[in-house]
């Protein structure tokens, strides 16, 4: 095929997808930046250039800082936990445990349910006095606790729901990786007298690195993208204790209709995601050099 034909075909084949991507990913990202420098148009008043005003408001907004730190805690709480659990589950389901088919089913089911549905069920779970969790803790002798209504526990409760939903999803990827490992590795290690833990630490885990990286990136994106449970369970309360960045953006943009401030907030979120992307890229570069 001639070079120019290649170019033509390449571009034409790519055009539809690229056009949509540009329209709904690249253009909005740039437009958000642009709109964050203007005020919100209201009724008859058009938008006015206000420079860094929106960002000034952002820095002075205690609710923003709360949402930001909540999101960081949320990420710190859910990411390691779900990955560790996923790995554990994968190892168990991969081993010779009886009934592992059922176990795999049990671990994976939360993943295919919509978060909205899951959140409703867990809301019931957490109800003080007669929710299921309360009934369990009371049978152990603990007093009643307002799980979702106390600032100390509300965010943690949401984290539990997230880990419950995500761990099974990540388990699958680990399972795939574990099953594609060559059996000779284990045989060779056994011959050399390596213990089970030693084998895991020195052989299995490093080989799982690509999967861990993949799962890690997914987990980070989800920590900032999934706010369905906040909408259902706490609506950001009590007193913004469970407000996450994207949820706050949703509130500002679609309940208070302050689109300019929402744009500034979105820029912060984009910056965080950008950092993650850079980190992933840099890490990958490092690894490929070692290969």
């Amino acid at each position, binding site marked *: 095929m001639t070079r120019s034909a*290649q*170019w033509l*075909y390449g571009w034409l*084949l*790519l055009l*539809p*997808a*690229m*056009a*949509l*991507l540009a329209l*709904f*990913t690249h*253009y*909005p990202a740039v437009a*958000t930046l642009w709109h964050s420098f203007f005020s919100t148009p209201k009724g008859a008043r058009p938008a006015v250039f206000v420079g860094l005003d929106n960002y000034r408001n952002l820095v002075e907004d205690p609710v923003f800082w709360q949402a930001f730190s909540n999101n960081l805690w949320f990420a710190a709480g859910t990411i390691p936990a779900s990955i560790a659990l996923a790995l554990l589950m994968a190892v168990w389901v*991969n*081993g*010779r445990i*009886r009934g*592992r088919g059922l176990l795999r089913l*049990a*671990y994976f*089911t939360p993943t*295919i*349910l*919509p978060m*909205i*549905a*899951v959140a*409703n*069920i*867990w809301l*019931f779970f957490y109800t003080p006095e007669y929710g*299921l969790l309360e009934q369990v803790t009371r049978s152990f002798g603990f007093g009643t606790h307002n799980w979702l209504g106390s600032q100390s526990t509300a965010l943690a409760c949401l984290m539990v729901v997230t880990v*419950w939903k995500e761990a099974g999803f990540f388990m*699958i990827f680990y399972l*795939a*990786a574990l*099953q*594609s*490992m060559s059996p000779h590795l*284990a045989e060779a290690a*056994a011959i050399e007298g390596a213990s089970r833990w030693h*084998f895991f630490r020195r052989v299995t885990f490093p080989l799982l690195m690509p999967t861990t990286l*993949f799962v890690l990136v997914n987990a980070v*994106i989800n920590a900032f*993208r999934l706010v*369905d449970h906040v909408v*259902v369970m706490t609506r950001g309360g009590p007193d913004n204790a469970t407000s996450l960045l*994207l949820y706050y953006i*949703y509130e500002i*943009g*679609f309940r208070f209709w302050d*689109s300019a401030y*929402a744009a500034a907030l*979105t820029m912060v*979120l984009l910056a965080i995601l*950008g950092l993650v*992307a850079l980190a992933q890229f840099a890490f990958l570069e490092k690894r490929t050099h070692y290969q």
Partner: protein
Amino acid sequence: MSNGTQVYASRGATHALETAGAWVLGLLWMLPLVYAFWTAFHPAEFSTRFDLLAPLTLENFRRAWDAAPFARYFVNTVMLVTMVLAAQLVLVTLAAYAFARFEFPGRNLLFALVLVQLMVMPDVLIVENYRTMSALGLRDTILAIGLPYMASAFGIFLLRQTFKTVPRELDDAARVEGCGPVQVLWKVYVPLARPVYLAYALVSVSFHWNNFLWPLIVSNSVETRPLTVGLQVFSATDQGIDWSIITAATLLTTAPLLIAFLLFQKQFVQSFMRAGLK
């Protein structure tokens, strides 16, 4: 399936302990769902009391079904998911083929731009995308819910990897027989990638069936709302929450996916596994 499990399988007490641990975790994991089933199938008085002899009832489902137009929501969701998947399959195939088999200037840059969407999903850009939708005059349509997702970076990435593994000889052979590039795509690449297509389809369907925030913002009327939004609107009222009805409604909305999953477990799991391996 052998991969060293026999070599390093736990034995004896450790094995028993591990089995017990795995099972406890499994039970804990199923608990919320079991709880939902319990509440949905029993009358309201038993929603918090676990009397094993309590009467079963379908009343909650009937009341949930009557209380909101779930039938319409089902239709909307099926239309949405089908529309998105169809568009994705076409767009993603064309784009992946271009990336995998054609040399053209700017290819690497464009691929990097595609990868951006893996990080920056349309969900994050709700404010701007909403503005775009109104400019296009598409607010409150099912098309608007699906449009931002139709060019799926994940799909392009997946298929590009797959197409790259197709041996060039097959390509050349078809070319020799006089096929144009698109025919080669259709006759050679697509059939070989069928398992990947299936995997991708399952991932896409479950993602869009369960998507919530963007559909919440874009849809306004009953004719557009998918199940997730319908469920939320239904259970978010300020009225006294009746858990039996809400869990019944919740099960109703998740039933199709759940049943499909139970029937096609193996395929589901294999698909996700395959998607991850790439």
